[in-house]
């Protein structure tokens, strides 16, 4: 299975082919990890993992969810301590007890989960912990200068003087990136930085990464987007189940399939989950004239049963806001919703659930799960099994186990959701909504930040729902996903639906043109 990969494993410390500005044959890696192991109760997260990243190199870490990437990054950044093994910076062993120790030796990290202080401005976030003082007080003029410079490199166009909580997720991600860049770190770790970025924003990031590489920074990059990995990487190190699969040079990797094989040790069907081809049936969901002041402007559309409709657009175009207004999570100033031809009155999310509309939110941790509750509780949140206000824990467990079965996953349903991997957390959310047997499913960025294997499963689930006669609306910023999955594509721009494209009309160019046109 992994024969080919294991054979191709070059000595981990081998020098990268590209970007070698060093002179001697034996350059010291900027960051080297040797034989790192880390266990959590019941889980071996990492076992004897090692890799080396050189200055002027983009080194990608590849692996499915749960492969140990996050744990590896956390130990390198001082968030967690390894049980054994060594971390070397410029050839010298280091030992971090806190992230500040890692920062002190020139390591910066862009976290996958946003780690900004949401109530303060972009400027404050950028200089947080690194404020320069003049006469004992923070020099805000200097801070602004520093922040502006870093944000300009990313062509950040949102206000920098408002609390970051008022920015979109993508904008916050850019602030997070700018923070890492502005530290002048020599080693920058980026954990799925493009997960919430649009393609235009990602392009800017890639330019910045190129700059960093030329400037001799070691960039450690994690992404599930294989095209990105091919475009950016000098070398790729793959992990599987906490173990090292191996490191390959870019020149040894021919295609995305090679990457997938490194990662999962098997070939996967490509992202070719096409439309069903079957004739869509009657109307499942119709939305008429929905407006939310300032974000959604008089939007009407319909999704037929058996159909997957993609909702594309730039981040900030109002797609999430539209979905939230439809299900009554946010107040709308006007607009009506029809399910299977009948008008439904939706004032609060409970009404939408009763009407058979399910919304699977974008941000799992904040809008999808109560992390300290058990999997069973989370799955049965909207209708805990029981009678007359009493709750049957036994049936709750059984119901949850049953709901998770089709999702091809094994987990103990009486453990807190917090202990699960990202992919499994996503499945818990899925299980909750699938068992509502709604007629309309709205997915908001369903595969953001999850690995190829799980992505394929979720695509299959969406398609399966459509085939079972459900109306499926999928909000996604992942253009290939939109094109592969959708029977029709709606494009939103500035709060309005500006285009409706049939399968044949929808191409990367046409969608982007509508999404971005002025």
């Amino acid at each position, binding site marked *: 299975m992994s024969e080919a990969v294991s054979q191709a494993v070059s000595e981990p410390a081998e020098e990268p082919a590209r970007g070698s500005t060093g002179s001697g044959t034996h350059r010291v890696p900027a960051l080297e990890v040797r034989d790192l192991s880390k266990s959590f109760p019941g889980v071996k997260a990492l076992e004897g993992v090692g890799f080396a990243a050189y200055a002027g190199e983009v080194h990608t870490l590849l692996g499915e969810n749960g492969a140990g990437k996050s744990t590896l990054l956390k130990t390198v950044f001082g968030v967690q301590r390894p049980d054994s093994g060594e971390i070397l910076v410029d050839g010298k062993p280091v030992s971090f007890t806190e992230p500040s120790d890692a920062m002190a030796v020139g390591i910066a990290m862009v976290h996958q989960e946003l780690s900004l202080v949401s109530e303060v401005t972009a400027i404050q976030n950028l200089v947080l912990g690194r404020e320069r003082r003049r006469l004992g007080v923070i020099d805000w003029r200097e801070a602004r200068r520093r922040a502006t410079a870093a944000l300009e490199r990313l062509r950040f166009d949102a206000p920098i003087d408002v609390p970051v909580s008022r920015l979109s997720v993508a904008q916050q991600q850019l602030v997070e990136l700018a923070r890492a860049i502005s530290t002048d770190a020599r080693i920058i770790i980026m954990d799925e930085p493009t997960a919430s970025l649009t393609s235009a924003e990602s392009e800017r990031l890639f330019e910045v990464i190129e700059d960093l590489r030329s400037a001799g920074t070691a960039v450690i990059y994690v992404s599930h987007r294989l095209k990105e990995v091919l475009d950016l990487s000098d070398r790729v190190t793959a992990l599987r189940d906490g173990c090292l699969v191996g490191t390959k040079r870019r020149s040894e990797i021919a295609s995305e399939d090679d990457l997938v094989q490194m990662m999962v040790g098997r070939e996967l069907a490509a992202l070719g989950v096409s439309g069903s081809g079957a004739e869509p049936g009657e109307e499942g969901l119709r939305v008429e004239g929905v407006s939310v002041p300032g974000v959604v402007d008089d939007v009407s559309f319909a999704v037929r049963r058996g159909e997957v409709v993609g909702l594309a657009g730039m981040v900030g175009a109002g797609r999430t806001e539209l979905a939230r207004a439809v299900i009554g999570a946010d107040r709308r100033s006007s607009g009506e919703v029809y399910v299977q031809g009948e008008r439904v009155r939706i004032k609060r*999310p409970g009404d939408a659930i009763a009407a058979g509309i399910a919304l699977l939110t974008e941000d799992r941790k904040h809008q999808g799960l109560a992390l300290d509750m058990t999997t069973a509780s989370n799955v049965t949140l909207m209708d*805990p099994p029981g009678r007359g206000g009493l709750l049957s*824990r036994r049936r709750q467990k059984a119901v949850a186990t049953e709901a998770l079965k089709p999702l091809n996953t094994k987990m103990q349903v009486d453990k807190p959701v917090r202990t699960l991997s990202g992919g499994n957390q996503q499945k818990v959310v899925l299980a909750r909504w699938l068992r509502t047997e709604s007629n309309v499913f709205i997915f908001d960025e369903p595969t953001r930040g999850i690995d190829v294997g799980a992505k394929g499963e979720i695509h299959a689930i969406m398609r399966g729902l459509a085939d079972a006669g459900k109306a499926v609306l999928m909000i996604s910023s992942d253009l290939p996903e939109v094109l592969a999955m959708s029977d029709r594509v709606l494009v939103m721009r500035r709060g309005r639906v500006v285009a409706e494209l049939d399968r044949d009309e929808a191409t990367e160019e046409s969608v982007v043109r509508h999404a971005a046109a002025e």
Partner: protein
Amino acid sequence: MSQSTLTPPESATPTSGGGTSVDLRGLAGRAARQGGLIVVIIALVAGFGIARPFFLDPTNLMNVLLQAAVVGILALGQTYVLLTGGIDLSIGSTVAVTAVSAGLFAQQVPAPLAILLAIGVGALCGLANGLLITVTGITPFIVTLGTMSIYAGLALIIAGGQAVYGIPVAFENALAGGVAGIPIPVFLFVVLTVVSALVLKYTIFGEYLIAIGGNSEVARLAGIRVGQHTATAYVVAGAAAGLCGAILTARLGAADPTLGADLLLTAIAATVMGGTKLAGGQGSMAGAAFGAIIIATLTAGLTSLNVQAFYQQVAVGAAIILALLVDQVARSRKA
């Protein structure tokens, strides 16, 4: 008391530290945290008993439980609120209002009705808190800080600025008396603890409170009526305070309108000692009850050792911090 089966799984963070494993396993199984608290209670009682043998006298022990009962019932009510991620600072003042109300009602109507009316007044105080919080969206801390002062003022106004005397004996007997040697407040305390623990684990109301405290946006998107359930938690806390007010009036034979601040802080201390998170989403009713018993034991024991009240305060404060510290260490060792 075998609380082991009543403890909600949310709080069942097995703590290996803090006691002998034999005791833990025997007493509490999964709910090792409660086991730890029981070990602490036993250790305290044994310690004080060695120093002052009369401490082990059944009458004295029952007296300790009686002291724990009022704080304990208050702590149970507070736990409902803390679970939602809120806090009720007004429960102490609610005790004052309801103590006075109970005294005045007792002079007019039969004892059982007077008790129910006092509980009703408490529930109304809680309802006002709940509605203010859920309708205005002002944070619970601020709302109840305000009502804490309002209710304290109301208690004094209703009582005319002084204690209400002339409580009928029938009323005193109804709450201060005993059945088979067990004082009624202790009986109520035990029953309410068991009922609350069951509510938390085996009712949808309990499940929803935990969900709201864990993540209120998730709860809302799942169609749970967050405001309604949150407000209900405050009503429960108010009603619990109302019962405490009635008990105190019966026990003292007079209604003191200046009761309050002390009870509030002790009740919160008991709650957090029992493993309830101030951030919401995790809590234990049995834990709150044990916390109240630990504080009462400590206070009574130190009194028996002739330790001055000032030093007692220091000791109780240290105990709270120590309890949470032990918990933290146990947790981090687990992680």
